């Protein structure tokens, strides 16, 4: 039993090892890489990616995929900016509105996927077009937001005398804690794992497959919308091009974090580690100074490949022991 559990955890353990090694090597090579400020920046600079990746983790755990996350971020960020700045809606009203829009958008895609038996890949691809196009139709350029600075400052958590956890990072961490609880300690979370593991048997077991699947995409829509809001906090602007290509980075973070793309196996904690690895590679490239930043994409692609092959290896071994 212990051994089997361990085997299932190999991708996650491998990710953790890579993360720690990367951190240690970078810490030794570059001065002040170990400082708390750098670590805090990992979280705050990648809060948008992290929050989107949390929602995506649920979708992938359920055996689906959501390609619309990046576009929803762009759409929500420009919608928020227009609501708050141009229309003068108070943030207290505007933020719940945009979060509801994102959630409804996700739920709509979930409905199409489940009730009309359309491939998730195709529906969310169309969702990606729709959200990006809608964002561009609202406004073509980015616009500054001035009314949010108070909210972000209020959410910052002080860590010692000269350092604080910025509001964006604390939102990411709080959402992660909630998501961890939802995934591992609620009925909904267990249903998601069950559907991802084997959907027909989940149906036969009488689990609420329909509502769970729609909810999973709604949750992903909510997370993307929240990521869009965090983007406006982080950059103090709304931008319809925000999050271009972010869906790929998010998928990469989830997969590197040890979640199987076939669904049913994985951890939300792994997604955090995946995001951290992503952040570290970016920071190392900045610290090094003479490497072209395009290497980030190539290295992430390679890491993705390595982890997918690792997953494949474990799966094929599992099959062999079973048959």
């Amino acid at each position, binding site marked *: 039993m212990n051994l089997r559990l361990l085997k299932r955890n190999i991708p996650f353990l491998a990710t953790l090892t890579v993360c720690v090694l990367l951190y240690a090597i970078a810490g030794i090579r570059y001065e002040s890489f170990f400082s708390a400020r750098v670590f805090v920046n990992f979280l705050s600079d990648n809060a948008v990616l992290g929050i989107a990746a949390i929602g995506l983790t649920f979708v992938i755990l359920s055996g689906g995929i959501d390609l619309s996350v990046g576009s929803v971020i762009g759409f929500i960020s420009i919608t928020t900016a227009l609501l708050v700045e141009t229309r003068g809606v108070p943030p207290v009203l505007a933020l719940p509105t945009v979060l509801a829009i994102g959630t409804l958008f996700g739920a709509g895609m979930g409905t199409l996927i489940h009730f009309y038996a359309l491939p998730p890949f*195709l529906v969310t691809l169309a969702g990606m077009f*729709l959200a990006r196009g809608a964002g561009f139709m609202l406004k073509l350029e980015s616009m500054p937001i001035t009314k949010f600075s108070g909210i972000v400052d209020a959410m910052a958590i002080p860590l010692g005398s000269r350092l604080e956890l910025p509001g964006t990072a604390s939102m990411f961490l709080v959402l992660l804690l909630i998501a961890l609880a939802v995934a591992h300690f609620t009925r909904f979370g267990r249903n998601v794992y069950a559907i991802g593991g084997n959907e027909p048997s989940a149906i036969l077991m009488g689990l609420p497959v329909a509502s769970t699947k729609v909810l999973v995409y709604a949750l992903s829509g909510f997370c993307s919308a929240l990521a869009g809001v965090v983007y406006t906090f982080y950059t103090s602007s709304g931008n319809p091009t925000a999050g271009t290509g972010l869906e790929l980075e998010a998928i990469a973070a989830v997969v590197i974090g040890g979640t199987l793309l076939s669904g049913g196996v994985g951890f939300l904690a792994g997604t955090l580690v995946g995001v951290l690895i992503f952040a570290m590679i970016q920071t190392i490239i900045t610290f090094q100074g003479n490497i072209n930043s*395009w290497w980030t994409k*190539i290295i992430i*692609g390679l890491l*993705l490949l390595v982890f997918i092959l690792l997953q494949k290896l474990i799966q094929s071994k599992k099959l062999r022991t079973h048959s």
Partner: protein
Amino acid sequence: MTRVLQTTTWRKLRWPLLALALVFAFNLAFTRHFFELTVRDGRVYGSVIDILNRGAPRMLLALGMTLVIATGGVDLSVGAVMAISGACAALLVTKSGLPVAAVIPICLGVALLAGLWNGLLVGFFQIPPIVATLILMVSGRGIAQLLTDGQIITFENRPLEFIGRGAFLGLPFTITLVLIVFLIVLFAQRRTAAGLFIEATGDNETASRYSAVNTRMVKLLVYSFCGVCAGIAGLIATADIKAADTNNVGLWLELDAILATVIGGTPLQGGRFYPAGSLIGAILIQTLTTTILTRGVPVEFTLVVNALVIIAVCLLQSEEFWKLIARPKRKPATQA
């Protein structure tokens, strides 16, 4: 004639053809000079020719994508491969001084390598196609940007420009290119075993394997072909603007190619494929884009239209949708 109208191909093609006819009718009524053709300096000019010319990269990608989708896969990396091949061409032409006759095969070779890589991952390592091609989609653009150092490389080179802007028999050369690739696909589908094997692999992979179809090689073949198609499309796009813009060339085009294929009647699950349908799908998308542009609506609106079209087409193809329409009172069996 009635027998022709009853074939599967025709039945599959009638929806996209109808949609295309609708868009053309709209243009006939509202866009002035839409169907007008003028001959200047031995070249034919006109909106329709322009649509075919602009749509050439989309059509090429759609043809490659059709074969990949026919095996039940998908290739997300075509846009990135376009960027790589364009970057190679610009770099070789400006830096190496090689003749264009050598540059083009090298670029297509690189694109072929990219396709082989995808085919290797999907066919031999059995990684799900979305993920396998995602790897190259993420790192491909990075590789292209690394090649060009993140700069836009411009060039002046007559023979290379010919690919994107030249004229052949009075028509843009790009149309000839598309026609050649289309005929190759059609020939492979109707006159060689490859077409049969591709359909068999998409229909039922396990059964095909037991019938001694080498499904791995079939997949390697279709992804390689798709890579080469993307390579040609990249050359056209690069030659057209006389520059390698690795950030923007082929952006969003992978999605257009998938959309064109699905509109054309090839199901995403694989199996029977319709190259002619994919061409019509690509022309339809290009016509929509051009129509939207000539009406003065922002080009971003095309994204929304594309999204709505893709959902509508998929719903029309979904059996569950028709079941729900036919019996709206009963809940679907899968609902718990």
